[in-house]
């Protein structure tokens, strides 16, 4: 899913902005072409992604119903809205997983990527941006089906609908950089599974992925404020749900930008250290 097969032809002289944009376009187009070839596999991947929120949805709406209609300010129908938007946000914040990174170092693919005149992060970025196109196409029928099955309730106003694509893209960038950062750990050790597990457990609990943060206990909400996770799930979902007003919206966008800047800086710093350690054998 994360593989980049055809190398991009290196320009002999300058690698200017125009070449850069061409490279993104090529990587993006490649993702689109590659994924549209496998509709069945992609539909299964979609079910694989969708089953998780459906489980949460069922559990929390039955808890809400048993508690007289609402918990944490969410009714059963609003939970349905939350988790259906969740599925769309999930399509967009999908980025190269640390497993993919691990695979690419183990198989020696990274050696070839390092020979290119661009940072390997950039084709990744292009690829995953392009990947959003087939993902959205495959998501649509599922999203409509879930909508019909669970009858959600969402109340966004016009500016919230307009702002949603923006915070959605920012969410992708936050998650992209932090996943990459996690992937970089593979330069130091092979035994990464437990660390990944820890990361995803933290993401599950502190991002709003499991349940809206208001429903979590107070200690978890406090911890979440010090971590990047809520800006990748909770915040964009809440915007489209119509629960974020302007006074909360701008600080939220700023927080997303700040985490992107932080993630980017960390990736740059650690990348420099990582490449120094890297030795390739063969290929």
């Amino acid at each position, binding site marked *: 899913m994360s593989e980049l097969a055809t190398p991009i032809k290196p320009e002999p002289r300058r690698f200017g902005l125009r070449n850069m944009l061409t490279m993104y376009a090529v990587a993006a187009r490649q993702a689109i072409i590659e994924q549209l070839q496998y509709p069945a596999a*992609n539909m*299964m991947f979609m079910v694989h992604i969708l089953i998780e929120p459906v*489980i949460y949805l069922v559990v929390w709406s039955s808890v809400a119903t048993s508690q007289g209609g609402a918990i944490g300010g969410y009714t059963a129908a609003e939970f349905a809205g939350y988790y259906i938007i969740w599925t769309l946000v999930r399509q967009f914040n999908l980025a190269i997983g640390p497993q993919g990174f691990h695979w690419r170092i183990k198989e020696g693919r990274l050696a070839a990527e390092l020979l290119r005149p661009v940072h390997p992060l950039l084709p990744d970025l292009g690829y995953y941006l392009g990947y959003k196109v087939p993902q959205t196409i495959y998501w649509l029928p599922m999203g409509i089906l879930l909508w019909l099955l669970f009858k959600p309730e969402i109340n966004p106003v016009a500016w919230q609908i307009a702002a949603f694509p923006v915070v959605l893209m920012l969410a992708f960038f936050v998650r992209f950089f932090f996943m990459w950062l996690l992937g970089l750990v593979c330069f130091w050790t092979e035994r990464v599974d437990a660390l990944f*597990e820890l990361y995803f457990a933290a993401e599950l609990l502190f991002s709003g992925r499991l349940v809206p943060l208001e*429903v979590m206990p107070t200690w978890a909400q406090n911890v979440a404020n010090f971590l990047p996770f809520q800006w990748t799930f909770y915040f964009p979902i809440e915007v489209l749900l119509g629960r974020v007003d302007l006074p909360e919206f701008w600080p939220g966008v700023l927080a997303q930008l700040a985490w992107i800047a932080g993630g980017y800086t960390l990736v740059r710093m650690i990348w420099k250290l990582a490449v120094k350690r890297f030795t390739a054998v063969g290929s």
Partner: protein
Amino acid sequence: MLKPIKLFGLFARISILNEVQYRANFFLQVLQSSLSLGTGLIVLSVVYSYTDNLGGWSQAELLAVYGVFVLMSGLIGSLVLPNMWAFMEDVREGRLDFTLTKPEDAQVLISVRVVAIWRLVDVVLGLIVLGVAITRMGLEASWWLAFAFAATLIMGMVLLYCVLLLASILSFWFVRVWELMEMMQSIFQAGRWPVGIYPDWLRLGLTYLIPVAFAVTVPAEALTGRLTPELLAGTLLFTIVALVVTRLIWKWGLRNYSGASA
């Protein structure tokens, strides 16, 4: 009948000898399993901070469901899944031909080859969770209960084996089967909760298509005294049918298989 068991014992010994060379993996698995167990327990506690009853299951009973889920994940993860991945890899790489030329039955051979022993950590953790749940429920131990639980657990495992093998057999025809396997593994996650809480369409799928209901909920029902003799008989019948159908499809698949290497 004895031969497959002997074969399993032999392969298990090889796997164990292989794996104990890497003892650090054991501690990492303990760490990883404890993390995911901890996360699961936090989720349960968040649910129960709002209500004391989910679809008719009390907190202690839900803990029992979760215990069975962890136990079953460990059993499947150590005994069944690694074999399926190896089998699919063999088909892709053309190595299955070597298995087919061996005198023993090929289905038996590909099913018992690998034991991922460190995943048995989950079996231990699942048993501990179950122990705590049983104490909290104040259950009276009885032979019927123990028998019903063990029987439903084994049948659940056999059913999951059938479904996973059926999915792997598809690799005779298709290249990207791993997405299907991933999908089934994430659907299995639905077993963390009793299937009764899901809407009808989903519950039917979780019962007959991917038998999460039989694998996790039914053993938990056996433990909590919800199992009727009719349900036990029905589970037995379904298991036998699934085994026979899987066997037939395996043979049919093999007839359609033409070696990729050699």
